């Protein structure tokens, strides 16, 4: 009788399943397979939506298209996802978190070209060329809100270098239209700073796309989506921070994680009106009895509740902070966070291939990480 389980009911059950269970459900029978594929939301409700996955890719393209590595905090496991379906070597730029997609740029050649891919469905889509060719623009992803349907999003490309100088324009790619359009200006001062210091991930908060310049002293650049107005926001301890990254906060405000070395680190939140930064978390010097380096090589990505700290080399483990308390509850910042040490090496994701990966990772090849919600449904790239 359950062979005829109504598609609606089955889809409702699937909406509570994490990606791992969904992948297995696809192998159960044809009916279930079709049901997983037909879900435009890609199963992102309830627990399935609660915790994003960490995905890491070689920051510099390595020969022979190595896989990317995903880690799920809930499953406490690494998985390797082959990228051999991509026609070109790529570098990870950002995640389109609401669509389960990765935004990458082609690694070869000087021409700047973006590509979207879903390593779970093994799909990819090459985006059209920008209207004004340029190299190294700042790239920002703005998720659209389309509850229930296939996710929509915008990709901003700001500034960048041209043959003789800096490109003072801004272009935006609309996922629904599939084309770039001109969207205003990137004043020279911003274009220079975003271009020269290779931009970090963008974070959207309160209708503003924020980027951080990735050289000291750190500084945050903001682009208000509705008006196209640019602004600069000062960074706390800007000249002392050895590492820093922007993160989205559950409150909808902008967050910043950074430290001055020797394992010290803080999580700040930007107050309304961009008036000041408030400390909302402290990264302890010792995590589960181990001191973590916290030097200039520290990389950081964060989601609504999680902060991942890792070195350029993943093989040395990661520190993950999870905000457990309510921001409205009183108490010390230290007590609102749970910090864990993730010992497992990503290379153990592929049995028998530890050595091959260790060569890539152990040789100092840096990784770049993003957080995203996996989607097993191909609808997001159709």
């Amino acid at each position, binding site marked *: 009788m359950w062979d005829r389980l109504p598609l609606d009911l089955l889809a*409702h*059950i699937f909406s509570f399943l994490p990606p*791992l*269970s969904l992948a297995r459900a696809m*192998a*159960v029978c*044809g009916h279930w397979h079709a049901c997983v594929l037909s879900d435009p939301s890609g199963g992102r409700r*309830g*627990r399935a939506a609660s915790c994003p996955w960490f995905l890491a890719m070689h920051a510099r393209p390595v020969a022979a298209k190595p896989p990317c590595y995903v880690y799920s905090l809930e499953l406490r496991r690494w998985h390797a996802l082959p990228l051999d379906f991509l026609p070109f070597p790529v570098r990870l730029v950002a995640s389109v978190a609401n669509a389960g997609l990765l935004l990458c740029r082609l690694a070869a050649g000087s021409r700047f070209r973006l590509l979207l891919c879903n390593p779970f469905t093994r799909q990819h889509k090459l985006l059209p060329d920008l209207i004004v060719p340029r190299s190294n623009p700042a790239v920002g992803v703005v998720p659209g809100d389309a509850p229930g349907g296939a996710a929509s999003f915008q990709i901003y490309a700001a500034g960048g270098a041209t043959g003789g100088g800096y490109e003072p324009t801004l272009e935006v790619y609309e996922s629904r239209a599939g084309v770039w359009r001109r969207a205003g200006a990137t004043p020279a001062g911003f274009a220079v700073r975003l271009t020269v210091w290779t931009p970090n991930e963008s974070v959207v908060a309160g209708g503003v796309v924020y980027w951080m310049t990735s050289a000291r002293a750190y500084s945050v650049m903001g682009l208000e989506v509705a008006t196209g107005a640019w602004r600069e926001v000062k960074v706390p301890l800007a000249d002392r921070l050895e590492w820093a990254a922007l993160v989205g906060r559950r409150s909808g405000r902008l967050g910043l994680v950074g430290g001055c070395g020797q394992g010290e680190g803080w999580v700040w939140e930007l107050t309304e009106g961009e008036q000041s930064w408030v400390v909302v978390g402290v990264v302890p010097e010792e995590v589960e009895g181990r001191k973590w380096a916290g030097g200039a090589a520290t990389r950081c990505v964060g989601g609504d509740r999680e902060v991942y700290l890792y070195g350029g080399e993943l093989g040395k483990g990661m520190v993950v902070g999870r905000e457990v308390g309510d921001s409205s509850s009183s108490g010390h910042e230290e007590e609102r966070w749970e910090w864990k040490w993730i010992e497992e090496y990503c290379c153990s*994701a592929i049995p028998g291939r530890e050595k091959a990966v260790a060569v890539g990772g152990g040789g100092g090849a840096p990784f770049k990480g993003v957080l995203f919600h996996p989607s097993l449904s191909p609808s997001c790239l159709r």
Partner: protein
Amino acid sequence: MSSGDSGPSSSKQLVQQPAAAGRSPNQPPLLGAGGRKVIVLKSGDEEEFEVDLLDAMQSRTLRRAIEDGCGDGPMPLPNLTGPVLAKVVELFRRHRGDPRWADELQETEKEGMFKDYAPQKPTAEVKGFDREFVSVDRDALFDLLRAANFLEAPGLLDVTCDAAADAVMNMTVEEVREYFGLVNDYTPEEEAALRKQHEWAFQ
């Protein structure tokens, strides 16, 4: 059972003139304890349950039936057994005013009739009830899933589907087939290809 035409206008009508359709004007509306309107649900095995009208509205199926004027006499639900219906009625009562599923009733709330549905944060007690509600064996859970699907009640659907997801979450493909009594309709080659495609999930 009609569908699709039970928009805001008909709900409004219902609120202004509760359970009026099909009733002669001199008959009093059905009143339960405290003067609340109640309807009677009858299971396939002839058990009858009095349900607060507002609680029954959590089910789109019951709502449509009530709006079509079927709420006067006992409403027959032949595909639900007494024990299942008893559980469902209790859940509707516990979920009264739960903002997670009360959205659809907010429109009518403006009329001031559904005061009890003013959203209240689900209490730990309600969450505990939900957990207890689905702490049943497989066959009983399947019965509740069928009931949820038939009644189209969002809260009941969420609680039962979440439990079904919980049950299969860490199962192997073979265990899932066994649990749901499903027939593997793949050829060995097709299944191997699917496992290969999502190799990471089978390590």
